[in-house]
């Protein structure tokens, strides 16, 4: 996949990091302000898609990216289920009720950044999963069209 002109590359260098940080902000502040894992994850995926579109890459590099992002996607959904069943796992050692999706951490003061038990953790894992999933979808289409062009040559 060919990259774009020098203007696009320069602007992308400046903007992509800001978009990535904004996605992290929306994900982490999900329990305080509008947003959450889905929106933040999609914004993070958007910053990576912007980088790939602007700078381009060869098929080998894209395949390497795809393997890593699909690994992160699987890791995200695994950590989500692990956190959701945390109360069941911990009930073997501590005195917890065996309930799926029980908020087993302390809730803290509502309104602080570390509060609401495991809700921020779940937001972060959903963000990982959604960002990696959308990026993997995009990479799959790009790799397919690249391989078609290589066959033509």
């Amino acid at each position, binding site marked *: 996949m060919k990259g774009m002109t020098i203007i696009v590359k320069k602007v992308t260098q400046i903007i992509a990091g800001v978009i990535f940080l904004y996605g992290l902000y929306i994900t982490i502040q999900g329990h*305080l302000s509008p947003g*959450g894992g889905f929106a933040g994850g999609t914004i993070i995926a958007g910053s990576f898609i912007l980088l790939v579109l602007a700078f381009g890459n060869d098929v080998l590099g894209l395949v390497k990216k795809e393997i890593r992002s699909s690994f992160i996607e699987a890791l995200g959904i695994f950590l989500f289920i692990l956190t959701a069943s945390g109360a069941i796992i911990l009930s073997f050692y501590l005195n917890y009720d065996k309930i799926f999706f029980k908020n087993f951490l302390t809730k803290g003061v509502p309104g602080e950044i570390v509060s609401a038990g495991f809700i921020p953790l*779940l937001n972060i894992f959903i963000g990982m999963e959604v960002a990696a999933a*959308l990026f993997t979808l995009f990479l799959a289409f790009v790799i397919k069209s690249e391989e078609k062009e290589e066959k033509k040559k």
Partner: protein
Amino acid sequence: MEILLIVLFILMIAGAIYALEAKDLLSAVVSYGIVGFGLVICFLLLQAPDLAIVQIVVETITLIIMIAVVLNTTREEIKDKVPQSMIVYAVLGLIFMFGFIYFFILSLNGLSEFGKHATRMATEYIQGGVKGSGSINLVTGVVLDYRGYDTLGEITILFTAVIGVLTVLRSRGRKKE
């Protein structure tokens, strides 16, 4: 505000109809974007910023992916033959349309007024949600605490969709034709 919403709805319906009828697939995709971004403004007017943020970013990413697909495959629509018995289809469509409208109007009478609909569970969530889940943003509290199973299902759907796409588009490890 309701007049503004009705104008937006008419614009969205017009965009959807144009997307169906357009000869060029790229212009069909772009006019399909009218539906999504009109929906964003509707969500903002109805005071649902959570949904508006999700809708605007997902719409942008899907537009990018769809435009990439259209540019990489074809820009022309596949031409189907016009079926012989158009009158039968038209009459059947009209019958179903009026049937649906009739039942829609019947069910509208049972609903409460616009903007004042709150069921018993919703009132419970609004009053005790912050204390129960500990998060100030009530939507996140409901989505990840009271309705955790729904979120688990949503991300499972996304995971399964990605696995399906990777399986269909895979070319590594396949025998050469």
